[in-house]
């Protein structure tokens, strides 16, 4: 709570210039006095954290644990609501292709080979198209994205925020150093049904995995959440890190 008051007092004169989105040549920094709650400001009273323990040597498990922690952290009440569009598209295309495959195989099983050939060919082509579409979507449209969230708050007007996080494990240059978790955020705040842009921020951050996981593979969740929360709040303030 102290943080937002401080910011508001310091830049009340910036208020008038940053509200009009039309005259901006570059991304405006969001108006601090309008700023909704950041994740670090929302402290949910010590909820039951489940201990997260992963295999330290498996990079995929480490990354997945971090991704899951980010999703849990940002989906808490009062914070962002996760938008599942990417997941739903993948699920939809995937399950459709499974049903097409099952139907084609069943048809081929019931009907004689010669008569079933045209239908089976059609089913096969359909399956290939769906699978290719799903793969292309996951590779190009979804990419590294792990979390897309939206939030509507009401202070003086209805403010809509949208945050997109993507994470990756970039290859480490030296063999001896620890691989790191790199996360990049894109944050947009707007009002008036998305027509007036209030602010935008892009942040990147990277931290080695050994900062959050101890020798046994137990994850230090408060430390991780503090780090991610700091990055989100930086993006919300509009500073490009």
């Amino acid at each position, binding site marked *: 709570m102290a943080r937002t008051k401080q910011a508001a007092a310091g830049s009340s004169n910036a208020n008038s210039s940053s509200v009009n989105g039309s005259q901006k040549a570059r991304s405006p920094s969001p108006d601090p006095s309008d700023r909704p709650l950041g994740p670090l400001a929302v402290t949910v009273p010590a909820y039951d954290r489940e201990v997260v323990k992963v295999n330290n040597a498996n990079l995929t498990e480490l990354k997945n644990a971090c991704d*899951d922690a980010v999703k849990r952290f940002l989906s808490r009440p009062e914070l962002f609501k996760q938008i599942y569009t990417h997941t739903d598209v993948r*699920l939809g295309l995937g399950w459709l292709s*499974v049903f097409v495959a*099952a139907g084609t195989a069943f048809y081929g099983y019931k009907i004689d080979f010669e008569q079933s050939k045209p239908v089976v060919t059609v089913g*096969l082509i359909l399956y290939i198209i769906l*699978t290719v579409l799903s793969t292309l979507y996951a590779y190009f449209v979804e990419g590294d994205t792990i979390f897309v969230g939206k939030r509507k708050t009401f202070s003086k007007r209805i403010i809509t925020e949208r945050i997109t996080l993507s994470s990756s494990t970039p290859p480490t240059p030296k063999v001896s150093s620890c691989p790191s978790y790199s996360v990049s955020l894109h944050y947009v705040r707007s009002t008036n049904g998305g027509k007036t842009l209030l602010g935008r921020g892009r942040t990147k951050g990277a931290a080695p995995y050994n900062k959050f996981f101890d020798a046994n593979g137990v994850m230090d969740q408060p430390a991780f959440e503090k780090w991610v929360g700091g990055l989100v709040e930086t993006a919300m303030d509009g500073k490009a890190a």
Partner: protein
Amino acid sequence: MFTEELKAFRRLGFRHVLLQVLNFASVIASGLMIWKGLGIVTNSESPIVVVLSGSMEPAFYRGDLLFLTNPSSEQYKTGDITVYKIPGAEIPIVHRVMETHDVPKSIDIRKYTKSKSKSKPQPGEDSKQDNQLLLTKGDNNYVDDIELYQGLEWLEKKHIVGKVRGFLPYVGYVTIAMNDFPQLKYALLGGLGLLALIQRE
């Protein structure tokens, strides 16, 4: 043993469970589609078969894997090794062609087959391409296959599943083992399923 996984599932939500099951289902689906695709491409109902008997020794032994194709314009010749299936018999047989007689399109092949079945003439099916009458025999057998034809005098092209193009020795024993011990099949499928359900990309 599964409490860890069950807890993780509850934590991650319904969509995650759907995604994991999709992983497993799509592995099975892609396997099915590859099999069907292979069948379409080779124009054969069962493009990969396992040799079950020793009737083609020393060429093929029990447990060999055979790769077949059945192009529609193929005219089989004496010496070709074919896999055929008699209607009414469950298991396809792999033997060598001994005699062939080409039957041009204009002649109705049923005059020569004297088949005991009273099947109605199928319009257009046999008259599109040159048909053939074939006689087969296993290399390791003393007599030809007339006994196996269940009343037919000759094999027709429609009975042929395909001609052998290549083979892999011993690999077929896996299939034989899974047929003789069905528990192995279920254990394998169960193990695969478990792996796909628990693993995350």
